[in-house]
């Protein structure tokens, strides 16, 4: 059975000006003039061209350059990369979404203008907070005023600007977090991702927590902050469409939605993941290694799980299609409803407040339908 064409393209830039203490992504803190960045970008360009020649990019509808910090590699390298993309992917396709991540410290007016000219139409800024104290705890390379400047500059060209905000950070009060939410909304961004700080193994924060020098994020505070985000942002017309994602109407990330709706994606660059599938099998490959190899039942279970991370949940039709492969899926969903994780409203199964906050129970039970 042939494989479905890729609809989403992800490109990873594994470089940052410095490594933040909480970060466990694949990235290296190296200077902007380091030749290793040149070599890496050359490889990306070649890989993009190869994929294009193989026909893998002909149906791409969303492109996402993430990191790391893509803005850290500077304009000249970015322009080669973006140029290579423009001759490989039909960037003029109707509705095509092209996101690039940037950090406030390395984004300036010129970069905003030039990447816009080269086809990027959505900017995602790693702001995290507008509170200098909190930014210091996180070890970010920018301060609040730099973040405000970057957002203003971005909004001069880009209508579609997203920022990341973090909550549950030791020392971050609810007031501080609420002020950051309001400031983001008032500055005019269209999309906000809200993540509670998680202590990942082998990070500096992990060591600090183990040494007792940093308080572990508090579950109650995190819950409070996540609810605060939903309440405050809805005042400004944002809708929560996924566990951690809020958008003004029409500004939901199409690329991220692809990850959550079983759309095949191609990843280029170090540690980027590619998902390939057909009606029988779904595989994920990272750095040449198969990290997932799912059969149809497992695919259905995974899609249900990912579906329940979205506010629109799973439709009756979707569920009955899953039941063709996993007959017990309906009973499982009804049981989750009985336990307060899910509501059944107007032909859709959607997460409740408990389903948002304590989703892991629900997710693992859905995955267990096809272990």
């Amino acid at each position, binding site marked *: 059975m042939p494989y479905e064409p890729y609809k989403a393209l992800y490109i990873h830039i594994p470089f940052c000006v410095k490594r933040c203490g909480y970060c466990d992504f694949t990235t290296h803190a190296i200077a902007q003039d380091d030749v290793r960045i040149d070599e890496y970008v050359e490889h990306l360009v070649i890989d993009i061209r190869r994929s294009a020649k193989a026909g893998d990019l002909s149906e791409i509808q969303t492109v996402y350059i993430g990191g790391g910090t893509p803005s850290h590699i500077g304009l000249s390298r970015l322009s080669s990369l973006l140029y290579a993309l423009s001759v490989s992917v039909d960037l003029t396709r109707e509705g095509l979404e092209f996101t690039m991540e940037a950090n406030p410290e390395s984004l300036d007016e010129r970069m905003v203008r030039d990447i816009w000219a080269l086809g990027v139409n959505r900017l995602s800024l790693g702001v995290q907070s507008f509170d200098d104290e909190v930014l210091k705890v996180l070890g970010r390379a920018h301060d609040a005023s730099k973040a405000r400047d970057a957002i203003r500059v971005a909004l001069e060209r880009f209508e579609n600007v997203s920022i990341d905000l973090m909550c549950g950070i030791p020392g971050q009060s609810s007031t501080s977090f609420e002020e950051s939410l309001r400031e983001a909304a008032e500055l005019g961004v269209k999309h906000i991702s809200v993540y*509670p700080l998680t202590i990942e193994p082998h990070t500096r924060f992990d060591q600090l927590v183990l040494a007792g020098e940093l308080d572990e994020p508090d*579950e109650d505070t995190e819950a409070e902050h996540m609810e605060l985000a939903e309440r405050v942002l809805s005042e400004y017309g944002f809708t929560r469409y996924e*566990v951690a994602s809020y958008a003004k109407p029409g500004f939901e990330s199409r690329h*991220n939605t692809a*990850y959550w709706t079983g759309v095949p994606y191609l990843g280029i660059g170090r540690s980027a*993941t590619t998902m390939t599938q057909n009606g029988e099998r779904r595989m994920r490959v990272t750095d040449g290694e198969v990290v997932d190899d799912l059969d149809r039942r497992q695919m259905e279970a995974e899609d249900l799980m990912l579906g329940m991370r979205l506010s629109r949940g799973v439709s009756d039709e979707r569920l009955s299609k899953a039941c063709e492969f996993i007959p017990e899926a309906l009973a499982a969903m009804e049981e989750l409803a009985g336990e307060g994780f899910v509501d059944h409203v107007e032909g859709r199964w959607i997460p409740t407040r408990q389903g948002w906050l*304590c989703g*892991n129970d629900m997710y693992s039970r859905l995955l267990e339908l096809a272990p």
Partner: protein
Amino acid sequence: MSQASSHIDQHDPSHIRNFSIIAHIDHGKSTLSDRILEQTGTVAARDMQEQLLDTMDIERERGITIKSQAVRVNYTADDGETYEFNLIDTPGHVDFTYEVSRSLAACEGAVLVVDATQGVEAQTVANAMMAMNADLEIIPLINKIDLPASDPDRARAQIEDGLAIPADDAVLCSAKTGEGVHDLLESIVYNIPAPVGDYDAPLRALIFDSYFDAYRGVVALIRVVDGCVRKGDTIRIMQVGTETLVEEVGARKPSEIALDDLSVGDVGYLVTGLKDVAQVKVGDTITLKSRPATKALPGYRDVKPMVFTGLYPIEGDQYEPLKEALEKLALNDPALVWEPETSHALGFGFRVGFLGLLHMEVIEERLEREFGLNLLATAPSVEYHVLKKNGEMISLHSPQEMPDPSEIEHIEEPYLRVKILVPPDYVGPVMDLTNSRRGTFVNMNYLSSTTVEVIWEMPLSEMILDYFDRLKSSTKGYASLDYEMAGYKPSKLVKLDILLAGKPVDALSFIVHADNAYNRGNAIARKLKEIIPRQMFEVPIQAAVGGRVLARTTVKAKRKDVLAKCYGGDISRKRKLLEKQKEGKKRMKAIGSVEVPQEAFMAILKVDD
């Protein structure tokens, strides 16, 4: 593989030397055994594998010997004669003392190993006493002389002063490098007497170990005292009365070599083809059916378990497999006893008796590892004697069996006589610790200027609450410990109940001295709060005695448990994380609607006073 006997004169025991190696744990006994095998050419150096005689995985991993082993070694001495050595390896841990006494009964001599860096320790004393009581010739050996911290003179002085064993001729040895092993082999030839027995008398052979082999039936390790036993003989096991055909006899070198016979003085194995190890009881005497001996050899006293714990399968369908696994282990471990037990919280399981905490840990580990069982163990307890007002006396193995307080006249608990050897500087901390465990000081002797022997009486129930680890840590590891039962004494004991979400959980209750009930109740309620994860609803934890609540803590309801980031490769990672969480859940036991991790049932062992 069958091979003709190679020993010197079939019926003359003058060239046989039967001996054990005894030592405090970690003093290098197993390494010394390995070196003897190597230097006598019994095992080629290339086949050497550390601690060859420790056959179980757990023995090698933990560096301890649990079961006795007997191996035959031929040694050509400096006098040009070839001798048959039977080396019987014995466990060094206090829990397995009974195995030591069994092995010693099969020997004429013992090599007493003392670590030159540590000197005489409590188990050295205990084992030396056992060897003296068994009338064995003792060869002192000072081991680890290659280490920079070794002090052979001090060790020698301690052997003479503390054990009253002449140590002028003590062998100085490094089992690690092999230095001094030759001296030991010569000393064995000259100092350990040959066995004395009557070849022409009716067969009498002592069973000092037996085990079940799935392919061959019950195999006995025996020491022939009089007469001779051959393949094809019909033997009678005197006290049990079993009669069976001998399918094979032989010796371990250390792989098994079949022999024509085992005769006076020999140590070897005997294959019976019987299916039940209880028919070949350790300590019993084997004789011939056709020409039976009239008097059995002195046997051993039965070992009694001292520590009891409830073992429950996490999944209900593993009850039968657990039972079968216990039966299999008991085939080779007469000290392991059990009876079925039912808990409201945990369902069907077993109350299992052990010799001590190490024995318990080893058995639990073997059940999980060798039989693939997923088990939940409750906090260990001891056997209490309850005298009821109606004059009846009952033995409790589990807090659940405690009668209503109104029916109780008084309760008695087992006491130990505890011997601690420690440098003088650490007597203070030992006093503090042991007093806090309801110990009473009995006596103190200076064995030498560096070692004090302190004798205490203390309840066994306090000993099993982590006493040994705390003793070690409060004395920087210097203290060593030995103990023996000192009978039952009345105590003011109460049953402390633990309630989760308002319901008493029988498997969490324990028996405690009334004066400690409040503190322990508080400590355990706090500990359980740490151990029990937050659930979808609030879970109050209470500690109560006879309906009176002494302590209360609360596990708050879960507020947030969700993976926020879920893009591209995150999906695989989260999948794995969720699977791991699911595995973690499998290690939990649902009690009512509360998910309780296994370690909660051992929480009492982990609380600070």
